[in-house]
């Protein structure tokens, strides 16, 4: 059994009919959807409709209340640490693509330690290790060492965003202290997926789609999923995402689900998205996902501008990064030069202190530590 079966079923006309139906929904349908929280699948569709736009402020209030009820009046902070920008894939939208002539860098363990210490000084306790997919430079053993090191130095929650691995490899990483795996499907549309991933192991749609499951089976406590906003119609992608969340929940009842909303803006590769998503559409997606999934951790990165992020703190979003750098070594090892290629440009370039101040101004508390070293993988 794989989520691919669900995707294939949805592709047999179901998802297209649903998208067409969304076009016909009225404001009344949106109001009806809001009568039951969490919203039903039909309600989720209504919240994705154009008609929901006029009711955004009401929907936002409900999302804010629901987020507070589940997570409190708090926003959790995490920080990404790029280990390597070496990659054998050639994703058309990514600054790390193998065919790009950019400076490549892979941090040594000593450099990782320096970067970790810098981030710990800022107060961070939750770390996302990011690595391009290249087993020559970043084999599982290297990532395992990085996780062990980060835990030893003081991070209490360590997740990875790297190339998909086997269940056994995830198990090895869990034993090293891995808590979370983030793996975006990028797009659930099979054809679009093939087009934007022309070469490298990533072109295997199914292997990537099954990754959250392999991670969950290995005992990873939190799996992060999402699609890259801009590659395909966001309504269609959101429906696939909704089905994916539901599938994972039922099958892996002990695994927490986190959802991120990475949106393509200007890319270092000059790629322009076929289905650009506007600010108001991004807000609409986030609020809809929150009202359908009260317990999911919803994350927003520094890809988005400060004003938009500030607005969404607590309104669906309960976890954010701040002060992120998206190239290896950029925190302390190579801050001035910063010559290694970035995965994507950071739009909200405020310091952690400035972001914390913004969180406080929204009437929220910031939280660095929401996990403990004594909490281990499920297995």
């Amino acid at each position, binding site marked *: 059994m794989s989520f691919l079966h669900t995707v294939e079923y949805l592709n047999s006309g179901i998802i297209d009919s649903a998208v067409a139906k969304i076009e016909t929904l009225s404001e009344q349908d949106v109001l009806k959807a809001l009568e039951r929280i969490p919203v039903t699948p039909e309600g989720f569709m209504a919240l994705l409709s154009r008609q929901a736009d006029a009711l955004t402020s009401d929907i936002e209030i409900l999302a804010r209340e629901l987020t507070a009820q589940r997570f409190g009046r708090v926003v959790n902070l995490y920080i990404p640490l790029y280990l390597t920008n070496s990659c054998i894939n050639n994703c058309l939208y990514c600054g790390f693509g193998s065919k790009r002539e950019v400076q490549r860098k892979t941090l040594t363990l000593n450099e990782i330690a320096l970067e970790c210490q810098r981030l710990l000084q800022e107060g961070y306790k939750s770390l996302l290790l990011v690595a391009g997919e290249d087993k020559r430079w970043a084999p599982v053993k290297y990532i395992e060492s990085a996780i062990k090191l980060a835990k030893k130095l003081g991070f209490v929650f360590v997740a990875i965003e790297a190339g998909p691995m086997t269940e056994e490899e995830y198990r090895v990483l869990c034993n090293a202290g891995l808590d979370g795996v983030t793996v975006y499907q990028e797009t659930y549309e099979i054809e679009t997926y093939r087009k934007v991933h022309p070469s490298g192991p990533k072109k295997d749609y199914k292997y990537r789609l099954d990754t959250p499951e392999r991670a969950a089976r290995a005992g990873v406590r939190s799996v992060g999923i999402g699609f890259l906003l801009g590659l395909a119609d966001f309504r269609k992608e959101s429906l696939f995402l909704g089905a994916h969340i539901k599938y994972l929940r039922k099958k892996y*009842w002990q695994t927490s689900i986190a959802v991120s909303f990475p949106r393509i803006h200007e890319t270092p590769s000059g790629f322009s998205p076929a289905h650009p998503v506007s600010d108001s559409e991004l807000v609409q997606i986030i609020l809809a996902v929150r009202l359908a999934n009260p317990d999911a951790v919803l994350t927003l990165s520094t890809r988005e501008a400060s004003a938009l992020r500030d607005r969404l703190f607590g309104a669906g979003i309960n976890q954010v990064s701040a002060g992120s750098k998206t190239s290896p070594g950029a925190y302390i090892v190579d801050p001035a030069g910063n010559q290694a290629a970035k995965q994507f440009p950071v739009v909200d370039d405020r310091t952690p202190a400035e972001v914390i101040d913004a969180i406080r101004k929204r009437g929220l508390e910031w939280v660095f530590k929401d996990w403990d070293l004594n909490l281990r993988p499920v297995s």
Partner: protein
Amino acid sequence: MNDNDTLTIAGRSFSSRLLMGTGKFRSPEEMSKSLDASGTQIVTVALRRVDLDDPQDHILSYVDRSKYLILPNTSGARNAGEAVRLARLARAAGVSDWVKLEVTPEPRYLLPDPVETLKAAEILVKDGFKVLPYINADPVLAKRLEDVGVVTVMPLGSPIGSNRGIKTAVSIQIIIEQATVPVVVDAGLGAPSHAAEALEMGADAVLVNTAIAVANDPELMATAFSNGVTAGRQGYLAGLGKKLLVAEASSPVTGLPW
């Protein structure tokens, strides 16, 4: 109410029957004021949220230990092993040898695992802890836990954070009837009236977090819960009237000819 009407847990007496949580507040200052307003004497703290190495920790440094008994909880633990490790860590760090035992393997509704909770309770009691286990409203489990030596049982009213009130009343009533340790209704209490209802039923205390922390005015809500607890307890002590299926006039007419 009789001044001697105290809540006694593990030989220690408390005049307040409202236990409070410390999560979800919009600032540590607001949490501190709410604790004060509630009159609580037992404050639970999630070990996964606190940094025991940080003297400026946003929760611990705002809870006055001379006023409150800190009750560390094992929130986040998904099995007995993790809960035991967390409790031992807290004790080793000098936080407390009391522990609110929470073992919640599923992250959606955070419902407690009866098997792992019982297992952890057994280990922790033997290890000298005063164990206050969070459980589903299961009367048999409550007795099994008493048998291993826990100092309270803490059945849930409804799923945590749901504000739905006491949806497990039938089972909680049985737990209260059979208990030889204090029964603290924990989780799901969304309004002061829910707290009153628990105390009216004969529960010894309640634990509240979300409903206070997430209120527009947490301090006022803390006062309201405190009043709800007092009203419920007084109602229980005064002896509530029986519920009847027919109406009974409040000013009966007497002396009719038939």
